[in-house]
């Protein structure tokens, strides 16, 4: 059996593709996306003080840092049986919006856009950012600004742009001044203006094209958060949805009915048949509405064939930024955003198990901490979006590689299948926590 290995480029972190051939080299038996260098955060975090957890956990990922700390805080709040104040929730949501803008923009501009241009035969030779800058100067300016603003928003609400310090178990220790609210408002308004241009440009470039079949997702189960059917990455509940079926609730505390893990082994074990998809496209299938009229109009431009194509995730990323920015402007107008509320003290432990869930930019994060009799954490399990998507990624790249092998060589294949991997926007840092 021959194994071909290639290092993935234009993804966050270190990943490899491996292609396995049968003994006669006549057929590809399997293609896999593999992540290595597990760091062992689930071991590091054992017996750490609860208050230290969000700060250490944020270091799992420099892109999803806010989602990681917030998921951790929600888990600890579950252990203490407390609910943070509304002011805290508003600030957390604003912080998550900044993170989403930066993360989605970085992926779209540097990692996905060159692929889209190639897949749809618009530009074949986009090999470095210099080529995008030269050919798409307006989009370049816009995306550099979006990335910078996402970073600044997180600096305002998180105290630092990466690895926030304001988010703590029980709430947030930040109360935005009038000046910072005005500044954030200006930033968000700028983001909306920029996104309108980008979304129109995306529609103009791609909406009339037919997305290639190889990028269709084969009957996955979509898993994502919604708040009474509305898009919400912080306060919703999780739901499962299979094609054309009604949504069923995912009961967080019973997550082991669907998947589980052994922290000494890498990866997640699934106990349901179909592959699960999490992330922007899954959220799109789970939510009934984004609650913003313009968004329905943007979506209606695309033919239904796009809806189950992984390449559509790129458009949904732009829409999610638009939706959250729109909502962030409403949150900033809420008088509660700078209401003085004292923080909850962490005194009485109510539950020996805590579970906390948020939707990070790339999909759900589920944290589960267990305390022993001495109230010390003796078990931690972190379920992370990219890990959940891996079986689906492998299924799709195997099919694509097998199909390609009928007409092309293995060197081309190892590059081609990376187009699928990148469309998922894997976060390898998170997955190798």
């Amino acid at each position, binding site marked *: 059996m021959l194994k071909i290995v290639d*290092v993935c*480029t*234009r*993804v*966050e*972190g*270190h990943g490899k593709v491996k292609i396995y051939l049968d003994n006669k080299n006549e057929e590809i038996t399997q293609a896999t996306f593999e992540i*290595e*260098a597990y*760091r*062992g955060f689930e*071991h*590091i975090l054992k*017996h*750490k*003080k609860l208050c*230290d957890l969000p*700060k*250490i956990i944020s*270091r*799992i*990922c*420099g*892109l999803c*840092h806010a989602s990681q700390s917030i998921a951790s805080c929600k888990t600890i709040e579950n252990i203490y049986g407390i609910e943070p104040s509304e002011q805290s929730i508003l600030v957390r949501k604003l912080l998550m919006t900044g993170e989403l803008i*930066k993360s989605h923009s*970085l992926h779209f501009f*540097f*990692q996905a856009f060159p692929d889209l241009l190639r897949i749809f035969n618009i530009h074949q030779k986009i*090999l*470095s*950012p*210099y080529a995008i*800058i030269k050919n798409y100067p307006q989009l*370049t300016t816009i995306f*550099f600004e979006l*990335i*910078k603003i*996402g*970073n600044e928003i997180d*600096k305002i609400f998180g*105290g*630092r*742009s*990466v*690895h926030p*310090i*304001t988010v*703590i*178990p*029980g*709430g947030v*220790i*930040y109360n935005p001044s009038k000046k910072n609210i005005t500044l954030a408002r200006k930033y968000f308004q700028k983001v909306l203006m920029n996104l309108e241009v980008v979304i129109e440009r995306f529609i103009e470039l791609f909406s009339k094209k037919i997305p290639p079949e190889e990028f269709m997702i084969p009957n996955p189960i979509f898993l994502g958060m919604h708040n009474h059917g509305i898009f919400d990455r912080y306060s919703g509940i999780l739901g499962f949805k299979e094609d054309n079926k009604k949504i069923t609730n995912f009961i967080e505390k019973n997550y082991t009915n669907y998947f589980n893990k052994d922290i000494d082994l890498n990866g997640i074990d699934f106990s349901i048949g179909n592959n699960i998809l999490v992330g922007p496209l899954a959220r799109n299938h789970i939510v009934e509405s984004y609650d913003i009229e313009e968004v329905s109009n943007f979506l209606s431009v695309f033919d239904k064939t796009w809806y189950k194509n992984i390449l559509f995730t790129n458009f949904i990323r732009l829409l999610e930024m638009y939706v959250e920015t729109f909502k962030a402007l409403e949150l900033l107008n809420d008088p509660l955003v700078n209401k003085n509320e*004292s*923080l*909850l*003290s*962490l005194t009485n432990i109510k539950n020996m198990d805590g579970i906390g869930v948020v939707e990070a930019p790339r999909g759900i994060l589920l944290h589960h901490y267990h305390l022993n009799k001495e109230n010390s954490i003796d078990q931690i399990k972190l379920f992370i979006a990219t890990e959940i998507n891996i079986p689906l990624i492998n299924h799709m790249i195997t099919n694509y590689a097998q199909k390609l092998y009928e007409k092309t060589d293995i060197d081309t294949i190892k590059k081609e299948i990376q187009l699928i991997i990148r469309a998922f926007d894997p976060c390898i*840092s998170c997955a190798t926590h």
Partner: protein
Amino acid sequence: MKPKILISSLTGCSGCISTLLSLDIFPQFLERTKIIYFPFIMDVEEIEECDIALIEGCVSEDSQVNLLKKIRKQTKKVYSIGTCAGFGGILSLSKKRIAEPVSKYIEIDGVIPGCPPPSKLLGNCLIKLIENREIDVDIPKKNLCATCPLRGEAEENFQTKITQINPNPEEIIPVEEDTECFLKRGILCLGPITRDGCEHVCIKEGLPCEGCMGPVSKSFFSNTINFISLIHLSKKIRNYDGIFYRFSKPTFKR
């Protein structure tokens, strides 16, 4: 001639890279240099000759040592970006994984510290580097206390017993003129053994320093011992793992 740049990530969180990509000066940086290797944003896989290499992340695998040696051979100047590459970083907490700074395996020309490096510091350093000027952040002369807003009257002998490593949530208050030093309030702050340069962001929010900027001197181990001998740590804190070496791995020998 524009300087040729190589940017490589070892084991880490990509937070330093994401900070670099969101810098005000990043478009200018792209314009004034020629990036020849940066897998996060481009498809090049071969390491060629270049002028400046920026390395993020700690060393935790053998293959990374080979990569580093290759980079050193091909590059005029190599810099560690961030606390992982500079001092080992957060994985120093791990008992199972190796987390070593880049300088353990190859000679480096400097460290731009922080978890991640503050934007202003990183931006200023990058501009200096492309103008072929020296960056001096690598020689930390001051600890965080030297310019601390809570400094008040300088004191070296702390009589208060240190019983907390995190202030209770309800006690966290943003700094005001008369706010007392954490160590005097019985809360552990690593300011005395941590280098300057973060603009005291945590302290200003009412949180003590955890040392993410890295050690103030190369002899971090002895510095830490000195510090511990000057303060009175409660037994509970003494028995708690991972306070002093949360971001920097102790080194006994260089």
